[in-house]
């Protein structure tokens, strides 16, 4: 076909060489089109939302540990409508639960992992001057920001924020208050942001990689971002469609998710009916299962980078890791209904989804095993990023292995509505993904600022967090196996069979509050090191990938001269070489 672009065109705009000096404050730090500034904006906003979501959970943990007791000190701040006399009302607990999930997943982890690290690191690792569409990149951030503001604002509408869980199951969510409408509007903003981001990432990775950087020379992190972007691109639109339909149900009175003859509080609803509540679950999990991999894949990418760097060895089985990654991306669209075994699924369908679920665990195990074997025989440097990366491996392992019983219909049914599920996915996401994200913060901080974060504070942060995370989530498995429901606002107080394990709620809660204390060294370290951290050159970790060829912090346009890749990403300890690392850009 005719390709007008194929013809050599005269180069316009030659006069625009280095105009970044002239930008004012607003264009440089707020409405910036520079991928590094946008990445840092995403990262800081994401970290703040993680802290906020964590605070919501700490409130819930009070209610679970001491049901009905007035919350000391801060209890009276939430007003008579939510916590009369400092005692939490069930409606407020539901708000906290729904918004904790939504904020952690859509406003905390994904923006930090994809928006933050993806934006900052990927163009550097492929040697590009910026993202392929810088202005679109800025739009992604601001759509995300609007989504976040909408979610926060929903706490202040009459009736409060969404209360139907982060999954917003219908028909409950259709009948819920105004907060749910805000939730849907917020989600539409966040989806738009993710879609624009995904288009940008894929185009950037394919088009802007430098000469010599073939696909099999990509750092593993770039691969994870590429697969993640495809997941976002193709899995989010079905949720978008579902959100539009739920919005129609709520605003225009349609019945997409409303079955005929629904009776609420003794009254038959007047809606036309004929809808299917399961449709929402299908569309939601069609997104949300791939979303699980959106949460975990960038984390694996960060861990792979840090492990290769600190074992001073090439990754073991790089190719098998890449192929596993692609297979994960492909299979993640075929397992969604294992979240729906409780809906009365027939045996044929259950058999299909159990099989695909067991198959999809194989590539995850391959990647984790490859990372574990990579440690073998390495001269490991135990710095803070490495500690977090090493912490990730067993924590994600526990999360993954406890997921297996949930992949089988027979064992899922008794476990599904219990704390076992909460324990399982939090092990994957909290001490799993979030540890990897911390590893990334400590690892790439010198690139962003030109200074290292403090090691001692980092180690306090790591060991404190590691212990607390296990204190929080390990008891949940025991409570779940004892059959305690995960949806009760009093933590199961009224059930006789729950009594022997109820004290574990107190253990969990104290774990959570102490975990908060161990985040203080991190927050202090993060700001203190900007001005006082140890100064570094452009490659403080003696790493091989391309981002370390740029100055720290890299200027607008990144590289002083365009780099070229001459070798694979992890050429550490090459026999006969003068140093124990050979950077990709060295001929």
């Amino acid at each position: 076909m005719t390709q007008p672009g194929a013809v050599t065109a005269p180069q316009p705009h030659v006069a625009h060489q280095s105009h970044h000096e002239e930008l004012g404050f607003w264009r440089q730090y707020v409405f910036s089109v520079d991928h590094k500034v946008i990445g840092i904006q995403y990262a800081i906003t994401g970290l703040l939302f993680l802290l906020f979501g964590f605070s919501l959970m700490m409130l819930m943990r009070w209610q679970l540990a001491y049901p009905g007791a007035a919350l000391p000190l801060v209890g009276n701040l939430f007003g008579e409508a939510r916590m009369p006399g400092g005692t939490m009302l069930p409606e407020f607990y539901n708000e906290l639960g729904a918004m904790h999930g939504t904020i952690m997943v859509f406003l905390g982890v994904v923006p930090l992992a994809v928006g933050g690290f993806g934006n900052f690191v990927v163009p550097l690792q492929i040697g590009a001057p910026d993202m392929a569409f810088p202005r679109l990149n800025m739009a992604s951030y601001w759509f995300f920001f609007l989504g976040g503001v909408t979610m926060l604002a929903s706490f202040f509408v009459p009736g409060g924020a969404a209360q139907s869980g982060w999954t917003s199951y219908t028909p409950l969510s259709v009948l819920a208050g105004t907060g749910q409408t805000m939730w849907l509007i917020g989600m539409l903003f966040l989806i738009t942001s993710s879609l624009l981001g995904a288009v940008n990432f894929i185009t950037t990775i394919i088009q802007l990689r430098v000469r010599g950087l073939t696909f099999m020379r990509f750092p593993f992190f770039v691969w994870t971002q590429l697969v993640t972007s495809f997941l976002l691109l193709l899995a989010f639109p079905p949720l978008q469609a579902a959100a539009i339909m739920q919005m129609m149900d709520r605003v225009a009175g349609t019945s997409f998710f409303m079955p005929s003859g629904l009776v609420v509080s003794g009254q038959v609803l007047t809606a036309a009916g004929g809808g299917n509540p399961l449709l929402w679950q299908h569309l939601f999990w069609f997104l949300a299962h791939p979303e699980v991999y959106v949460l975990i894949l960038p984390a694996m990418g960060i861990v792979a980078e840090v492990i290769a760097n600190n074992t001073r060895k090439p990754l073991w089985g790089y190719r098998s890791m890449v192929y596993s990654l692609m297979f994960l991306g492909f299979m993640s669209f075929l397992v969604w209904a294992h979240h729906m075994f409780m809906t009365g699924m027939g045996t044929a369908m259950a058999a299909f989804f159990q099989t695909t679920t067991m198959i999809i665990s194989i590539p995850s195990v391959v990647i984790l095993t490859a990372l574990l074997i990579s440690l073998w025989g390495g001269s490991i440097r135990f710095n803070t990023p490495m500690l977090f990366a090493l912490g990730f491996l067993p924590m994600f392992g526990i999360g993954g292995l406890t997921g297996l019983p949930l992949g089988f219909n027979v064992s899922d049914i008794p476990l599904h509505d219990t704390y076992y599920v909460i324990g399982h996915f939090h092990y994957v996401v909290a001490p799993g993904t979030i540890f990897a994200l911390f590893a990334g913060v400590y690892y790439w901080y010198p690139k962003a600022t030109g200074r290292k974060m403090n090691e001692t504070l980092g180690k306090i942060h790591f060991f404190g967090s590691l212990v607390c995370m296990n204190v929080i989530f390990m008891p949940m498995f025991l409570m779940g196996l004892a059959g305690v429901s995960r949806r009760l606002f009093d933590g199961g107080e009224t059930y006789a069979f729950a009594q022997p394990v109820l004290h574990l709620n107190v253990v969990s809660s104290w774990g959570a509050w102490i975990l908060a204390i161990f985040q203080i060294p991190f927050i202090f370290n993060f700001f203190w090191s900007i001005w006082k951290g140890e100064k570094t050159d452009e490659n403080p970790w003696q790493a091989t990938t391309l981002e370390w060829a740029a100055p720290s912090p890299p200027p607008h346009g990144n590289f002083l001269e365009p780099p070229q890749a001459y070798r694979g990403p992890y050429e550490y300890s090459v026999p006969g070489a003068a140093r124990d690392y050979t950077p990709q850009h060295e001929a």
Partner: protein
Amino acid sequence: MTSDHITVDHAADIDRQVRVYVVVFVALLALTLVTVAVSYLDLPPAMAIAVALLVATVKGSLVACYFMHLISEKKLIYVVLVITAIKFVALLALPAVTHSNGFWIDE
């Protein structure tokens, strides 16, 4: 600057293309009339659905192949579209998954 850079290579090519566009246009109009005409025949539902979707698919393919130039696109675009097509099939399996006999107990 003139646009010679573009036209020199493609002048003959584009004239051929324009003739193709006109042919496709006529075909699309004809198929639209066919599908409307068939709907007045009151065929049995299965038959009607099959014919309507077949005609729509042919029309859609004409648009995609010729107006959107997919017939001669680069390999990378095909890769993206094949991945999308696989996920799309999974998505369309969703009603079947819900309603097929024995898959969901209440159906």
